[in-house]
Each structure stands twice: as C-alpha cells, then as structure tokens.
C-alpha cells in the first residue's frame, strides 16, 4: 500500500506573547488512497491544526508532511499550488467559507479556473452547474451570493467546490457540526454517496463520535496535541483501549438518560501552554498511577491497525469499565 498522504512525527507550534503553544506534538498518521479516516478531539486537541498542516496551510516546526510522496516543505510555491489541485477542504461554517462578495458559481468554479485555465468560461459554468446539481442544489443558485443561502445549501455548495477539481483527498473540518440535525443527516448522506462514487479519500475531523462513526472506517483520537489512540472503527467503538476514548464514548448524550452514566471526570484545568511531561490526560484520568505523570506513554501497537498511548492498556482499564 502506498500512502496518499502522511504526517511523520509532526510538531506544529504557535508563538505569541513570549509563550509557545504546541498544537501538535509528534503526530504521525498515514492516509491510504480512497480511505476514510476520522479524527476525533475536543477544543484544544489540535485537530484543526492537523487539517491545516496536511494541506500545507501551516508550516511544520519539526517532522514532515507528505502528499503523494512529496514533502510539502521542500516544494516551491508553484509546485505546492499544483499539488493543491489534488486536495480540498470543507470548513465548519459554510457561510464564512465563501467570499461574501462573489457569487456561489464563481466560488465553486474557482479551483477549476486556477487549475484548468484553458477551460472556456462556458465549459466551466457547465461543470459548476453539473456539480451543484449532483450535490442536490438548483444550478440557478450559482448566481446567488452566500448570505442568500441557509446553512444546508451553503454546505452543499462548499462540497461542490471541494469536489470540482476531482481531488484525491478531501479534509472535512467539523463540516457538519454547525448544521441543524435534520440537515446534518442530509450532508452526511451526501458525503457517503460522493465517496462511494469517486473513491476520494476523506479525512473527517469532528468532536462528534456518532458522526465520525458513520463516515470513517478508521479513527484517530487526539488529546492536547497527541495521538492517544488509533483503531479501526469496530475496535474503537466496541472496545476502546484508552481511558480518554472511553470517556468520549460515555459522554455522547443519549436519549435514554439512565443508560448514559457519564463518569464524573474533572474538567481540564491545565493551561494549553503547559507542556506535559507524562501522559497529557493524567489529570483527568480515573486510572492514572504515579508513573503516568512522569513518563510519556509511547504509542504502542496492540492489535493489527490499533495503537494506543497508555501505560496501563494491558490491564484493559478502559475496556473493562464499559
């Protein structure tokens, strides 16, 4: 298997006011062509930074970002732009991801205008219309401006823009989180259909485990910039190995209140600027022992395709309390 994209020991830091915030701390991952990988994390987990790093929108401080075998850091501006034809991103807030002064049609057609400048204007319009129709929109919407569309249609247009240059990888950064439940389901279905049709690889980033479960066949869990667990969907949801994954699963609100006995876990009080010597989750972990605060747990392979960064995974602490 050759990887489509990969992060190798990636470190991304942000500096400001004399402090350093390590958003990603030695994160590695591999995305195979046509694969759908889910990334789960809460605020401050570094999941949006991960999306931006993969697309070369933020620079790596250490480690490498590879796409199609090429290291993004070594590419020149023009080469990087050409490579971007093969990737696309869909943001959380559909209205904000469109230029308020441009028509939807112009925005959706922009990647084509950049990467296929030889294409005649009429042909480009036709491609935009066809794709709008495929994403369930009236092609006449091409003449509208983003503020005239509500959230659902706007996100459909964002999907059309992401798909128009036939990319190999689409990154969805909380792409359905801002939508109403009834509309969210429509967009999830649309993404599933498009994936089946085009075989495009999907990196689906979300805080919502139920949504990720529907869209991703492999899931990676981030906490404070570190990968704490990565596993195939079935394994992760049925038998999580990391206590944080367990906590996330137990926290999903359920309609049957009795069934969701959310464990009482103290909230995160550590500053995002603080660097964790041991495990990042130690302060909130119900299973933490003294060594957890002293030694950073390595990401160990525990089963085919499943790895976890927990000193006590062998004891099955996370799995047992289910």
């Amino acid at each position, binding site marked *: 298997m050759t990887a489509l994209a990969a992060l190798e020991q990636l470190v991304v830091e942000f500096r400001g006011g004399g402090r350093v915030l390590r958003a990603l701390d030695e994160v590695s991952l591999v995305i195979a062509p046509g694969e759908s990988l889910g990334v789960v994390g809460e605020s401050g987990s570094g999941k949006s930074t991960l999306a931006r790093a993969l697309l070369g929108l933020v620079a790596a401080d250490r480690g490498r970002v590879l796409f199609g075998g090429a290291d993004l850091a070594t590419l020149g501006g023009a080469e*990087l732009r050409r490579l971007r034809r093969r990737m696309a*991103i869909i*943001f959380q807030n559909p209205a904000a991801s469109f*230029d308020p002064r441009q028509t939807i049609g112009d925005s959706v057609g922009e990647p084509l205008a950049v990467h296929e400048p030889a294409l005649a204007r009429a042909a480009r319009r036709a491609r935009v219309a066809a794709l709008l129709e495929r994403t369930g929109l009236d092609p006449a919407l091409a003449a509208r401006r983003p503020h005239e569309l509500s959230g659902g249609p706007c996100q459909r247009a964002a999907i059309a823009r992401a798909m128009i240059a036939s990319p190999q990888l689409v990154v969805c950064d909380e792409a359905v989180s801002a939508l109403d439940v009834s509309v969210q389901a429509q967009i999830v279905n649309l993404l599933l259909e498009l994936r089946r049709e085009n075989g495009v690889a999907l990196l689906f980033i979300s805080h919502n485990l139920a949504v990720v479960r529907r869209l991703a066949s492999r899931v990676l869990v981030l906490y404070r910039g570190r990968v704490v667990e990565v596993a195939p969907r079935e394994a992760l949801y049925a038998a999580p190995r990391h206590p944080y994954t367990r906590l996330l699963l137990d926290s999903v609100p359920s309609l049957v209140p009795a069934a969701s006995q959310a464990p009482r876990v103290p909230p995160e009080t550590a500053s995002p600027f603080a660097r964790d010597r041991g495990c990042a989750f130690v302060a909130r972990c119900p299973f933490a022992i003294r060594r957890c605060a002293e030694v950073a747990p390595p990401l160990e392979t525990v089963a085919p395709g499943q790895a976890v960064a927990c000193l006590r995974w062998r004891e099955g602490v996370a799995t047992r309390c289910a």
Partner: protein
Amino acid sequence: MRLAWPARAALVVLGVVLALALLGPLASPWHAEQLDWQRMAVAPGLDGAHWLGTDRLGRDLFVRSLEGVRVSLAIAGLATLVSLVLGVGYGAIAGYAGGRVDALMMRAVDVFYSLPYVFFVILLTVVLERRPATVFLAIGAVGWLTMARVVRGETRRLREREFIEAAVAAGVPAPTILWRHVVPNLAGPVLVYATLTVPGLILLESFLSFLGLGVQEPAASLGNLLAQGAQEMEAAPWMLLVPCSFLIATVLALGFLGEGLRDALDPHEL
C-alpha cells in the same frame, strides 16, 4: 444599505454644493477673476448682480467662493484618490504577506509618520512651484499613510477568514487572492475611511492656502479666500463669512456622510 437621516440630509447638502459649484458660476454675469471697478467691497445684495458681495478688488464673491469650493474639493478628492490607490495597495500587500515583509513595510510607514508633516509640505511647496498640483502632491504624499494602516489592519483580519483559507487551499496564487478576494472585501471600510479623509484634506488645503503656501492668487481656493476675508473681518465680515459657510457646509456634510456609511456598512449592526 440604508443610510440614517443625517447621512441622507448630508447627501442632499453635498449635492446642492456640488451643483452650485459646477453650475452656479454660469448663472452669474461675472467670472472669478473679473474686476468690477464700480463696486469694490460691496455687501451682499442685488446691486450689480453681486449676490454675495464683492472683495476689495471688486471680484464677485459668489463666483469666487464656488471656484474655491471646486478647487478645494478637486485637490482633496484627487489626493484622497491617490491615498486610496497607494494606501490600499501598500496596506493590502503588507497585511496579506504578514511576517517580516509586513513588519518592514509598516516600519517604513512609521518613519514617514514621524516626519513633521507641515514642515514636509512647506519644504515641498518651497522647492516646487506653488500651484494647485503641488499642493495636491504634498497632501497626497502623506494622506495615504493612515489609509495604509487602516487597510493593513483590515487585511490581517480578512486573512483569518475561512474563505481566504479556502482560496489558498484551492491553490489560488496570492496576487489573485489579493485582487479577487481581499480588495473587494476591503471596499466597505475603505469607502468609509475615504469619505472621512476628504474633509480632513479640505481643511488641510485651506490651512496651507491660508498660510500662503497653497493655492496662489489670483486663483481661488477656500483657504486663500478665508485668508483674505480674515483681513477684512471687521469692516466687511461677509468676505470671511461667505467662503466660511461653504467650507463648513461641505466639511460637515462629508463628515455626516462618512459617519452614516460607517454605521450602514458595520456588520455588527442589524
């Protein structure tokens, strides 16, 4: 976009002043540099069709004041235009580039800022010939600095927006992003700032002309009319009051219009 009533009233006042400045002189039998030997320093009235009186040399104040409005507005307007082009270009590039380029470009602006402005203008008018074009050059050369700062701040804010990030991620080259996404979205704040710049520059022009550094006799500008009027303030107050009224009306109207535009374009207001 809906303007509040003060701004709409200001638009009407501006329209009237502009129409008068362009068409008013045609209605009068006099022109700006013509002397009326029979009627020197007469008060406003119907005598000899000098509706707003004459100055010491018998020149018609109605026509001269309107000529002054035209010249002052033209200088301020052109200078604003220059500051718009320079300021938007410079500020947008600095703001979009960010990092060291931004720091370097903005420090250069700071250096210009720290030069004593009036001294700089005086120097320029001394070195070059004192013509309206020189005044315009002097004002324009410095007027763009604030615009560049405004635009740079606005561009930095825009850069954080997702639609710019989406364009970068789509592989759109930076110049195209600047031209197609950044500049059009600057239109609102830039327009407002420009409207507020014009009255400031009119006042500056008047100030320079008042000092005798600006537009020179016999050409009229609001500034040199004020300077002459001020000398006759006690004997012939209309010589000061007439150009003064035009100046106040124009500057106030532009101020109100800018205020109104800012409110109307402010995304936080409903």
